[in-house]
């Protein structure tokens, strides 16, 4: 988690306006507030988590990204962050489009379904993968649309979404993803972090 926060924080310029979509208990918001910018908002679907955030004095709105991002004006945030939640939406493509409208830049992080540990479970055990990063069973997972780093990379190219930076994370090792190492990074990383723009 800490590594992911650091990477996200390094992608953000100081004193900019940030929206954290699916902000959970506000840990990333707090982290960014202390390190980067005071001007940060959150959107979260769970009442309990929204209350936790508000209790910490964080500005969070209870709402659903699929229906509630519309209310924000175009380009009203310098950065919109979607940390490990894209796979949980009914319609990830719509959400990405909404994020790109609301934010000048968008940071998306993806638990990589192409990671070799994940692949091995399906290959050898023949069961849906359960890992540290993806702890749910098939019958109770909130993750409706799992994808791989490569899937997201290809998605961006096919939709003409500009990738400014793409970073792979394995344990605490950080590396850049590019066209030539894409297959390898897709196999060897548990998390992908993308800075994109429409």
């Amino acid at each position, binding site marked *: 988690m800490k590594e992911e926060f650091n990477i996200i924080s390094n992608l953000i310029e100081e004193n900019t306006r940030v929206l954290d979509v699916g902000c959970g208990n506000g840990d990333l918001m707090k982290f960014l507030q202390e390190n980067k910018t005071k001007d940060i908002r959150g959107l979260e679907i769970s009442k309990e988590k929204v209350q936790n955030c*508000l*209790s910490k*004095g964080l*500005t969070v*709105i*209870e709402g659903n990204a699929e229906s509630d991002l519309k209310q*924000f004006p175009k380009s009203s945030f310098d950065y919109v962050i979607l940390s490990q939640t894209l796979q949980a939406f009914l319609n990830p493509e719509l959400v990405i489009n909404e994020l790109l409208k609301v934010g000048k830049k968008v940071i998306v992080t993806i638990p990589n379904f192409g990671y070799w540990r994940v692949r091995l479970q399906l290959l050898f055990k023949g069961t849906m993968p359960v890992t540290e990063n993806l702890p749910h069973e098939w019958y109770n997972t909130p993750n409706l649309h799992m994808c791989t780093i490569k899937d997201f990379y290809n998605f961006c190219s096919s939709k003409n979404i500009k990738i400014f930076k793409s970073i792979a994370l394995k344990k605490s090792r950080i590396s850049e993803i590019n066209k030539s190492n894409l297959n390898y990074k897709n196999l060897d990383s548990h998390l992908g972090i993308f800075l994109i723009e429409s």
Partner: protein
Amino acid sequence: MNKNIDTKKIIISNPLKLDCGKEINNFPIAYETYGELNSEKSNAILVFHALTGDQYVSGKNPITNKDGWWNYVVGENKPIDTNKFFVICANVIGGCMGSYGPSTINESTGKQIGTDFPIITINDMVNAQYELIKYLEIEKLFAVVGGSMGGMQVLQFVANFPDKAKLAIPIACTSSHSAQNIAFNELGRQAIMADSKWENGFYSNYKLNPDKGLAVARMAAHITYLSEKGLQEKFGRKLQDRDSLRYGFEADFQIESYLRYQGSVFVDRFDANSYLYITRAMDYFDLSKQYKGNLSDAFKETKTKFFVISFTSDWLYPTSENREIVIALNSIGADVGFVEIESDKGHDSFLLDVPSFLKTLGDYINSTYKVINERRI
């Protein structure tokens, strides 16, 4: 009602132009304060009361001898902690706890003003209370807070005075009274006016009181403050002090007895004409109309932070209406937080012991106060 108890009161000498076109001056505003104003005058919170509330937010209400209406929220070590904050609450104009209202005595006639009192609006109430803030020499409030009609005043206050509050917390309210809201208020008013003792609003001249009508108004309104689930759980079909139905029109059911009691205690503390005037003010409230149909424009000038709160079982001012405020604020990039609190207690949730509401509200106010203070340093 205006009983002879020493209420804190100021006389506003500045003329106040009302929305109805009339002008009032030299009129009283009754208020109460709790806690101490700090030397920087940075810890003041203005609380706005709802339809039947008054200035006695906390502690004992000296007139009714009952607990203050927001005792769960305001007081020592409460969510709005009076050890830390200076809390101000004024009786709205049109009210009957000492502020200028229909039960105020007209000095030239020695009689109550009655329905000669001008129609007032939420805007007028807020403008009158602003005079109190000026009198208290508070340049900027830390927060304006209120539920229901109090929430409407919060919205109107920020729209009228965009740089006078750092934080605004409208709770369980709306930016415009719906047809259903107006309908229930009209029911209450008709109940009062149908009482033969109302005498077109001049009942006090005849030493009368339309208490039956006012009690019915209160009973009907009280139902709208609860939820179906809450009512069912609390009362169900339970009988009142009897084992079987009596086959008559006495209060067989506990819910009947409860409503009758609510009606009867209300008439002892509230003036029927005030009920007419204040419900009218609520019905006339339509903030977006004041800004040519664009609610966002009401808040365009402000840097005030907002925190909007609604309750799941509130069908009088439902979450969807509270959310419209959030949407309007978001669409101009204002700083707004929002949560819908889970509660079975209906619209009244904001007045009651709803732990997740009290905790979230208290934590939010305290941490925001800290953040704002730290920033200043």
